[in-house]
């Protein structure tokens, strides 16, 4: 995993302050080692490597976007109303 945005859990618009906070969170969570987190932070603090990272790792999924079908869900019954079936081959 080398995507600094995923390592730190920030998006491409993250400010320096947000990145600093994300670094602290990432170190606390322990999902990645300190070296990886430091490298991600360094990458996002440098304008050139940050632009590189945006170009390389961020994908605009807009052209692929498909909305979930709008099916009315009974707001009073949060759960689907299913009847238990007796199945036989």
């Amino acid at each position, binding site marked *: *995993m080398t*995507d600094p945005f*995923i390592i730190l859990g920030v998006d*491409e*618009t*993250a*400010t*320096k*302050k947000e990145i600093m906070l994300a670094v602290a969170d990432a170190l606390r969570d322990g999902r990645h080692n300190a070296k990886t987190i430091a490298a991600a932070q360094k990458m996002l603090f440098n*304008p*050139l*490597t*940050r*632009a*590189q990272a*945006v*170009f*390389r*790792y961020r*994908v*605009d*999924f807009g*052209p*692929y*976007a*498909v*909305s*979930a*079908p709008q*099916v009315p*869900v009974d707001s009073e019954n*949060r*759960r*689907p*109303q*299913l009847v*238990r*079936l*007796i*199945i036989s*081959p």
Partner: protein
Amino acid sequence: MDKTNQLQAFLSRGERLFAKKSYIAAKKEFDHALHIAPDKDTQEKRRLCEEQIRLDQRKEQIKKARKLEKKGDIPGALNGFSAALAATGSTIQAEPWLQDKIAQLRHRLEIGQMTSAVEKADDEKDPSIRLALYDIALAQGADPAILEKKAGCLVEMDRYEEAVVLYANEATTSQSIPQSDQGRYDFGFALIACDRYLDGVAQWEPLLSDYPILFPQIITLLPYLTRELAEHGRGYALPRRILAIIAGTDSRKTSPAATQDPQLIDQYARYFDYCYLKELWYAGEHSAIPALLPSPPRRRDVSLLAKLYLSLSADNVEYLSIAITYWLTVIHDRDTLRSLHVHQDTPNVSSNAPSDEILRDSLLALLDKQVAAHARSDQLSPSLSAHWQNERRQIARLAALSIEPEEEAASSEGGMASHGSSSNEDLIDGDRNYFPCTPAFAEEFGISDKILRLLREKKSDFDLDEQDWLELYAGYLPLGQYMSWIDPGNEEKIFSALPGKAQDQETEYLRQRIAFRCGIGRVLAGGRYSRKYFQAAIPLLTKNPHLRQELIYLVYAETTSEKVISALSDAMEFLARRLDDSRFLEATAHCIGLDVENLMHQGVVTGTLEKRLDAGLAICPDCPQIQTTLSNVRREQNFRQLDKAMRAMNLGKAARIVVEAEDEEIKELFFDAMENAYDSLMGGGNQEIVSLGLRNLYEACCTADEEHWLTEQLGEDLLDRRLP
């Protein structure tokens, strides 16, 4: 009869009956005898009778019990064997088999009772009663099948969480629950009722192909499943598989409810595809993504594919070729680079945003680094290397022209696909304008013709050298890729596919350029018969110094093998007669010189060497290499002649060879041989022969070098012997 006689009669009948094993009758006789006269012996006999009677009774009980067991009367058999065991007294030893038999029958009886309890429960309509009966059955021993039934009862009674816990607990112990289809369905049902839609549907997945009756329930679940998956952002592989099963099932087998809205199912399928694409990308599972995208790819996939292939090619060189094509195209895309500035312009995000050029160079460096890494690990084939160089060079040339399809054309309907539109419009589509692009990209997306048309239209605007223009243009022509590389052995095939003498200069350039590549291919394979390819490329070679330089480079490269030098010298000798380029001519002579040296080491006869040398000297007599080779050949020749003369003891001729060669090494060799001859001569006995030999040696040495110490020594020896 008196009492004594009666007693005797009872005793004797008793004995007789005992001997005949009629123990009951014998006991009666002994009882009568004891009534008349109690006696210890008779009492003992009576006791023995009783014991035998008990043994017989026990045997009978066991026999009966076995019969009952055979008949399936387990309780009766158990009673029989138990009675037999109880009959075992102090005098009869209990057999282990009897105890085992009783334990076995008890177990069978319990199972039977449990089965009947389960059967009774199965017939019961009230789930709570069934649950109680199953609990009774389970109290006698755990059985996964009954556990499933119990869980089913819990589901029926809406006690879903208990059912889930029961299944989960049992799954950890037996590893196989639920075993039945109904059990699996119930488990899924309970999970769904606990808002665990993905887990529930996962339980149902194996059932779907056999039970289309479940489809309507799946469809009902989809909005809830969608909501659950959206919260986690992962798990979309399962609903995709499930919808594929539903879509792939013959509609005749499904209920109308399942097929009533195929559009809805299709919409969900597309939505899950989209979500799965995102899931895979962010999870770094890139290798599964190409299968989600259409083939051939669409314009809108290019940006994603470029990033994807770059990622995949880091570990797999198979993806490197396509990564080069897509990555180079995308990093030269102005719109893509500009879009990055949207984020960089966000307040506080970054200052000193890099320019497009700097960013492009840094992105190119990423690919360059990847190519270099594969080259270091010897995974970069010559064809891949040529592809990398060609794609990189061509897109850089195109980008340097600073032409751009007119933006207003982007709004035209149909974009790239529209027929009859101008070339400018063709290079733009609704998604993205990928201009400039690499030749391979242009070919894949069918825009080579449009690029060529645009280049022709704008040719007058470019300040380009004619050769550079032709190189750029021909690179985007069909077969243009073969200008850089032809797989070994395919030269003739590609050459035959070329058009004959072409009408337009660009196609003619391509023809000659590929012919040149065919020739180079043959030379690199160490093969002869490259002349026809170079013959076709001569007009181009006369104009293009870069191509001549390619041959020159090969001549001077340290890695060029003897085989290649041989083929190259043949080709260059042929070309030298037609090219007026001093560097090329010198390189040709150099190459011939190297070839002659190689031939000389292989022991090729002097005549052939001299013929080749003459050819090289005729091309460039001042070439240092050909001069060195010439001298080497001459020296070799002299060595051979000297050796021959010495072997024939023709000392005069040998001496003349030394004089003519003017070579210190040959001279030294000659005098070494003379010294040896002198030493062996001086050891001889016949003074007449010695004197004659000394004279011959002296004369030869005098011819070779009058001042040599051996000549002087020989002279003194002759004087000593008073010989003139």
